[in-house]
């Protein structure tokens, strides 16, 4: 890894890259609204419908019987981060199509650092949106511990980072905006449904779907959700936190390799603007 020139340069570049992402995000009010409305709909419609159908037993981190909306909240926070992760990857695909990626990749900075800046920008936006939804959840009377809003911050940052890194990795392989909708379908939906976002694992096993339970256990998104779930109660789920961290680090490393013209796929393709 090549070092970044000076700390001041690194910081200035980070501010420029993250600042651009934030400016673009703020201009797209539709994105902010849908980021909050989407999980809110799930929260309202789903939890109202299933409140009495799904009893959630007392499993850690819960010390009491919890209602379904409380169970769902971490999964929906995860959904916010998941969408933002894919959005930041979409932003890179967009940048590639409008030529902004060239400008970024020819900046006098090591490529891994440029990608890290993009990742941090995406993660920041993810955390901000997660808090916006958390506020909505509180307003809707979801019974989460108030101090949970604080203790969840590291988990949100970690989850946002990991999902943004997965998005970054995807952007290496998804080269056109048109292909992106398909990728969303094959990534977001399976990641969300084959996870503990909507039902606890034991519930899935109880219904006899062992393979779904296994898929959910192996799904990194499950671990993002569980990390958030425990953090809301001031607890750390070591396995989930470790898996989340490792997946994030691995996805980032692979993405850096993918964007490296000497080793990655980008340098081999003719006449492309990577």
């Amino acid at each position, binding site marked *: 890894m090549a070092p970044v020139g000076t700390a001041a340069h690194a910081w200035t570049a980070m*501010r*420029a890259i993250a600042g651009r992402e934030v400016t673009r995000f703020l201009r797209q009010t539709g994105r902010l609204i849908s980021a909050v409305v989407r999980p809110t709909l799930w929260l309202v419609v789903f939890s109202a419908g299933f409140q009495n159908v799904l009893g959630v037993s007392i499993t850690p981190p819960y010390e009491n019987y919890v209602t379904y909306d409380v169970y769902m909240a971490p999964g929906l926070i995860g959904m916010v981060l998941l969408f933002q992760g894919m959005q930041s990857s979409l932003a890179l695909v967009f940048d590639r199509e409008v030529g902004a990626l060239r400008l*970024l990749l020819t900046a*006098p900075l*090591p490529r891994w650092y440029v990608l890290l800046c993009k990742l941090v920008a995406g993660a920041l936006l993810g955390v901000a949106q997660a808090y916006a939804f958390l506020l909505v959840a509180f307003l809707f009377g979801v019974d989460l511990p108030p101090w949970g809003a604080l203790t969840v911050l590291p988990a949100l940052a970690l989850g946002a980072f990991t999902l943004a890194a997965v998005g970054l990795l995807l952007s290496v392989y998804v080269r056109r905006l048109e292909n992106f909708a398909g990728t969303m379908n094959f990534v977001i939906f399976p990641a969300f449904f084959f996870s503990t976002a909507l039902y606890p694992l034991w519930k899935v096993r109880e219904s006899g779907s062992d393979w779904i339970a296994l898929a959910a256990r192996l799904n990194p998104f499950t671990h993002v959700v569980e990390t958030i779930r425990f953090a809301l109660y001031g607890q750390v789920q070591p396995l989930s936190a470790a898996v989340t961290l490792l997946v994030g680090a691995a996805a980032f490393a692979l993405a850096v390799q993918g964007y490296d013209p000497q080793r990655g796929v980008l340098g081999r393709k*003719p006449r492309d603007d990577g």
Partner: protein
Amino acid sequence: MPPTASQAAPAVVIDALSKSYGKVRALDGVSLALSPGQFTALLGPNGAGKSTLFQILTGLFVADSGSVQVLGHDLARQPTRALAAMGIVFQQPSLDLDLTVEQNLAYHAGLHGLAGRRARDAIAEALALFGQEGARSQRARTLSGGNRRKIEMARALMTEPAVVLLDEPTQGLDPASRRDIVEHVARLTRERGLCVLWATHIVSEVEGADRVVVLHKGRVLDDGPPADIVARHGGAALEDAFLALTGREPAGRAA
């Protein structure tokens, strides 16, 4: 950027660059040395390998063999130092159309480590250089094609690079804007001692260049002041010489 680059030493040394895409040899042993204060035109028809050469010079692609030195920094080994010395105008537009001109330039300044007052001064100076002070707070989307190009050039020059690379920068512009931009860059080349490489397939654009490098099918066919090239290949003007050079297939080479 370091003003220490001696006038005698070349700013960019391209040595035996080759690049293939499958069976197509896009660049075939291209060697060039570019000097400060020299406006060099890279003239070649479409598909000559100009864009490939630019993508390698800007570190977006890696050559199969050969090397590039920018102010003595090897592009493969010290890419950030080499890139810091370069200002680039890409063939494809690369302004963020949703941002204002100032936001675009500030973003670029940040990427190059310029912040605060230094960034503001650099932005003001760059805009003045291309007579675009009035566009400062306009969204890039609202600018004409010619003015967008000028902003991109201002952006490339705002970091005071020693080397400026422009890949078909007049594409899509009307003849008046084209001439305007060429003359402007030629003047800046002299005034600031820039090392300029300007790729194009439009002959009339580069008749005033200090030096013309004719690239065809990945090879340098001729290299020298426009008058010398005309003298060598006959015809009344550079256009004739260019057609004579590129129209005739070098014997024994497959595409």
